[in-house]
């Protein structure tokens, strides 16, 4: 990978990290409500996976998707506006943190039912196959989804039909508060995916460059007609499951051990060693990211909310008379 590529990955990760930190403040201040799931610690997955896709490819994600949306290029302002419940939000305030959508960037959410997006990703790939379009669908989900039937049904279907899906399992080792080993008899997720005839790899999910390279290989394989691929991206979330979570199920020592492998700082160190980032450069980047977030927050705050009169819009294309009653 070129130095520019690694530097871009770093910028993306820093934007995600600082964005999530701001979300914590805004949640604590009551500006963001509902559930808020942050991806601090998992930035290398978002940056690496999304960097390997082209604009024509599709992305299906989960409720922990701020990083995926940012890395896909969804503007920060529309994400914050969504979380503030504003009409300028990427889902017009109908979705919130868990349901970020951007059809223009083929970003299909934002699914808050664990594994619920996986069959949809298979279908997006099927549509491409039927129209002979050389596009790939990347489907991101957590390790918890591997326990769901929809995961297994979908892997079989995608493999059976040889569809161009890249299944990206963001394995942060916990399904909410339940450790992988407490809910899976076989914890080698790539091994299990492989049993469906899907090419599968385990990847260091704290190494953004490795994630990008593995995803690029999977995307190339799928695009070339090699069928679906599965990536187990081994990572860790540094914060609790959601803002409601007291995080009583993890050892402090475990969390601290993983923090030593902070993906942002790991890449920063590599860039510094390669002469691609120095203190001044880091400071400059931090300031630019800070400004971007400040501006996004200001714009989102100033944006109007959707009038209550519009409550029943977008249920169906033409107004459902039941909704209008």
């Amino acid at each position, binding site marked *: 990978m070129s130095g520019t590529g690694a530097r871009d990955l770093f910028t993306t990760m820093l934007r995600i990290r600082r964005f999530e930190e701001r979300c914590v403040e805004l949640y604590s201040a009551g500006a963001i409500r509902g559930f808020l799931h942050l991806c601090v610690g998992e930035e290398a997955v978002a940056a690496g996976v999304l960097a390997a896709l082209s604009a024509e490819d599709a992305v299906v994600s989960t409720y922990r998707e701020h990083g995926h949306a940012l890395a896909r290029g969804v503007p920060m302002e529309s994400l914050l506006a969504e979380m503030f419940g504003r009409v300028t939000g990427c889902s017009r305030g109908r*979705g919130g943190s868990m349901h970020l959508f*951007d059809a223009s960037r083929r970003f299909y959410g934002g699914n808050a039912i664990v594994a619920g997006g996986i069959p949809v990703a298979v279908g997006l790939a099927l549509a491409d196959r039927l129209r002979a379009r050389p596009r790939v669908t990347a489907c991101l989900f957590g390790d918890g989804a591997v326990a769901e039937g929809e995961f297994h049904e*979908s892997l079989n*279907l995608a493999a059976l039909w040889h569809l161009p899906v890249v299944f990206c399992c963001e394995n942060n080792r916990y399904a909410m508060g339940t450790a992988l080993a407490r809910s899976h008899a076989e914890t080698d997720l790539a091994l299990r995916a492989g049993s469906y005839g899907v090419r599968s790899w385990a990847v260091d999910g704290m190494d953004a460059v490795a994630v990008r390279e593995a995803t690029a290989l999977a995307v190339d394989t799928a695009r070339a007609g090699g069928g679906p691929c599965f990536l187990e991206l081994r990572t860790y979330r540094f914060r609790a499951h959601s803002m409601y979570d007291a995080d009583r199920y993890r050892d402090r020592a475990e969390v601290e051990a993983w923090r030593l492998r902070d993906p942002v700082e790991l890449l920063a160190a590599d860039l510094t060693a390669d002469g691609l980032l120095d203190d001044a450069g880091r400071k400059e980047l931090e300031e630019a990211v800070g400004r971007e977030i400040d501006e996004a927050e200001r714009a989102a705050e100033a944006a109007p909310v959707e009038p209550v009169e519009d409550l029943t819009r977008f*249920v169906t294309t033409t107004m459902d008379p039941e*909704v209008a009653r």
Partner: protein
Amino acid sequence: MTVTAEPRTLTFREAFREGLREALAGDDRVFLMGEDVGRYGGCFAVSQGLLEEFGEERVRDTPLSESAFVGAGIGAALGGALPIVEIMTVNFAMLALDQIVNNAATLRHMSGGQLSVPLVVRIPTGPGRQLAAQHSHTLEGWFAHVPGLRVVAPATLEDARGMLATALADPDPVLVFEQIGSYGVRGELAADPGPVDLDRAAVRRAGSDVTVVAYGGTLAPALDAAAELATGDLSAEVVDLRTLRPLDTATVLESVARTHRLLVVDNAWRTGGPGAEIVARVAEEALDELDAPVERIGAVEVPVPYARQLEEAALPSVGRIVEAARRAVA
């Protein structure tokens, strides 16, 4: 749609198949997928011959993975295809509830109008074949509960053939509930039935003494009952709802305004069922029109049993409809 000069005699199975064939032939974005729809020809032989005619890409046999293939239908619809997904029976649709309720019905709204799911799901349904409790329930009303879905129940040959085309033209998800018991029933298809309107209920038999509201599997017994009542000088008007969501309340209210008596016939259990919704709307909007308490027939509240006499006792019948109509006008 094929325009024929003369009325034709055919079965519901053939009418449904004609609708499928015309949809597949008319738009190359349309494809059919489901369990046994291809090589087997459809569990109820509805899609017989379509694999041979349209090929493996457009008539796709799926694994027994209802959630995955319904979800794949949603994704394919998002991706610009026009999928027709068949779920073998409504009972198996329970395995795809997540995709239907949490995705198909919500994506447009949750995305602020950005996404559209032009998906059609065909779901055979209906009791009466001694198949016991896991193959005989009438659960259409569950789906009619959900905003974002359209739920239709073809009960005539014209609707059996024509509803699919209208459903496919709808940019939102449509569930088509086909009566398994009707597949082998033969009847006469109108010469040029024209396009089917999914927004309106239909008065299938005009009458003046009592309004009988039915849909799907209860239309035929309701019409039989009306014929029997006519021999006793009682004139029943039979309304076929056709669409459970959105409900065409106006047609029901207009009929009640003519007859002033209401009987609702439904194969579903009465508690919380579509019949309850009809009665509630008439009570809300036309209580003054009623000259007698409403009559409501549904399935007896048991899981539908196997033994013939027990199953028959559990379900609405022509005899029960006749009795209820007589009570309504007494």
